[in-house]
């Protein structure tokens, strides 16, 4: 009913436009008929519309929304976004901050967390000199290749070695940390939702005491940003834990900021070069695009501006038609 009444209107309108004056009388007659449509038609149409809209809303209410079973505590507090300078498209890492961040990693994080995918050589020219990194690498011992007797000896580290892990394997790490495995930090910024913001918030977000009524398990610490709010890692960054060699005041948030920027470098050491390449690519490609536009317009100019004109030749009628031609 509703559909028919809806369909009738455009049909009538088309008919009125296409037909001439001769059919005006019949079309006006139809208009008069629809203007006085019976009440039961209006009622049915309204009810059908309400039923359709209502069932659609009910269906959306049932199945349309995303199923979300976690409580806010299980989900964890979403990290606050901080205006990181190094994340802007035209900014590089602050390499002084990277150097401070590596100092924080070495003095605080490295006792539990490994950084196994980063070799000593990758620091050279980024935040340390060759000699500094050589001495740092030599402080650690690595296995040699088997010698003539098949024994494996120890040798001091070289630049090509990777940063040694604090524990021999994951099981040893779990055993030393009451069953909790400290994750490897090489790619942690890429490996966590929220990236830099999440880690900064996690490091600085330990409240003085857990909110009233919150359940904190034995041996766990309350951290709102960790999913489930119970984290095995305690707060490690306190004011003045590290003494920076460049004299920066080592507050908790300053250390957290530096170490997060360092971890971002560990996960994305190519970031500076990538942004540099991006600027080069945009410069070159926009130049080439401008040239290609100019070439196209240059080549098409004669084609676009030409004018095709047909001028018929003067036509004289044949002689046998001259008598009939009324010239």
């Amino acid at each position, binding site marked *: 009913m509703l559909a028919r009444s809806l369909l009738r209107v455009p049909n009538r309108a088309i008919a009125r436009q296409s037909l001439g004056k001769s059919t005006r009388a019949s079309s006006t007659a139809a208009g008069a008929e629809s203007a006085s449509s019976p009440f039961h038609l209006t009622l049915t149409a309204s009810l059908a519309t309400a039923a359709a809209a209502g069932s659609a809303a009910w269906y959306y209410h049932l199945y349309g929304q995303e199923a979300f079973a976690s*409580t*806010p*505590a299980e989900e964890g*507090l*979403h990290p*606050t*976004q*901080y*205006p990181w300078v190094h994340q802007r498209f*035209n900014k*590089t890492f602050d*390499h002084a*901050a990277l150097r401070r961040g590596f100092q924080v990693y070495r003095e605080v994080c490295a006792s539990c967390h490994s950084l196994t995918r980063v070799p000593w050589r990758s620091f*050279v*020219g*980024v935040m340390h*000199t*060759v000699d*500094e990194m050589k001495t740092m690498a030599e402080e650690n011992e690595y296995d040699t290749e088997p010698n003539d007797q098949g024994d494996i000896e120890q040798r001091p580290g070289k630049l090509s070695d990777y940063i040694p892990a604090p524990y021999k394997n994951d099981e040893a790490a779990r055993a030393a940390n009451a069953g909790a495995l400290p994750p490897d930090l090489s790619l942690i910024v890429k490996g966590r939702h929220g990236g830099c913001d999440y880690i900064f*918030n996690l490091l*600085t*977000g330990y*409240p003085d005491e857990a*909110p*009233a*009524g*919150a*359940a904190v398990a034995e041996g766990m610490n309350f951290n*709102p940003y960790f999913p489930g*709010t119970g984290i095995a890692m305690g707060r490690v960054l306190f*004011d*003045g834990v590290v003494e920076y060699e460049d004299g*920066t*005041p*080592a*507050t*908790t*948030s*300053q250390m957290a*900021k530096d170490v997060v920027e360092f971890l971002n470098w560990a996960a994305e050491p190519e970031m*500076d070069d990538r*942004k*540099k390449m991006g*600027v*080069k690519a945009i*410069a*070159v490609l926009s130049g080439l695009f401008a040239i290609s536009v100019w070439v196209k317009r240059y080549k098409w100019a004669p084609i676009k501006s030409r004018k095709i004109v047909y001028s018929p030749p003067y036509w004289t009628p044949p002689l046998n038609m001259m008598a009939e031609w009324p010239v």
Partner: protein
Amino acid sequence: MGFTDFFTDVVSSLGFSEAQAEAPAADVETSSTPQDEPAEKTEEATEESESAEETPSEESSEEAPEEEEAAAEEEEEEEEEEEEEEDEPEDIKPKLEEDCANSAKCAPYKHHYDECVERVTRQEEEGDDFKGVKEDCVEEFFHLTHCATACAAPKLWRELK
């Protein structure tokens, strides 16, 4: 001077700093510090000479050593305080967030959280007598913390290096 050098120059003018493999020469700082130290020493020397001139003019010679000791103690205390300040720089993040939590912007969240804490502590005090749904203030805490940290974030980044 090829055509590609033009693009290289443009890129280098954008302020991407070059990474240096070798340590930069630090002659300037080392040369300046020894010059400052003698100046301080001379100042100290003049102060000592002044105090030495003052002491004989005083009639009671017994008081003079006591004063010197007191002055020395004061100096030591000042040095200790300075050392403490240097050792433990104070973080401004908790203060900024507390100010933000008390601001008008976060007032509703603060109100809800305080109310929840009051309610839950009352429940805990009642202990076994309390019959009802046990609740915690984690959600209220989240809302308050989110508001406070989001408000403090730009202020904190202005202060940090």
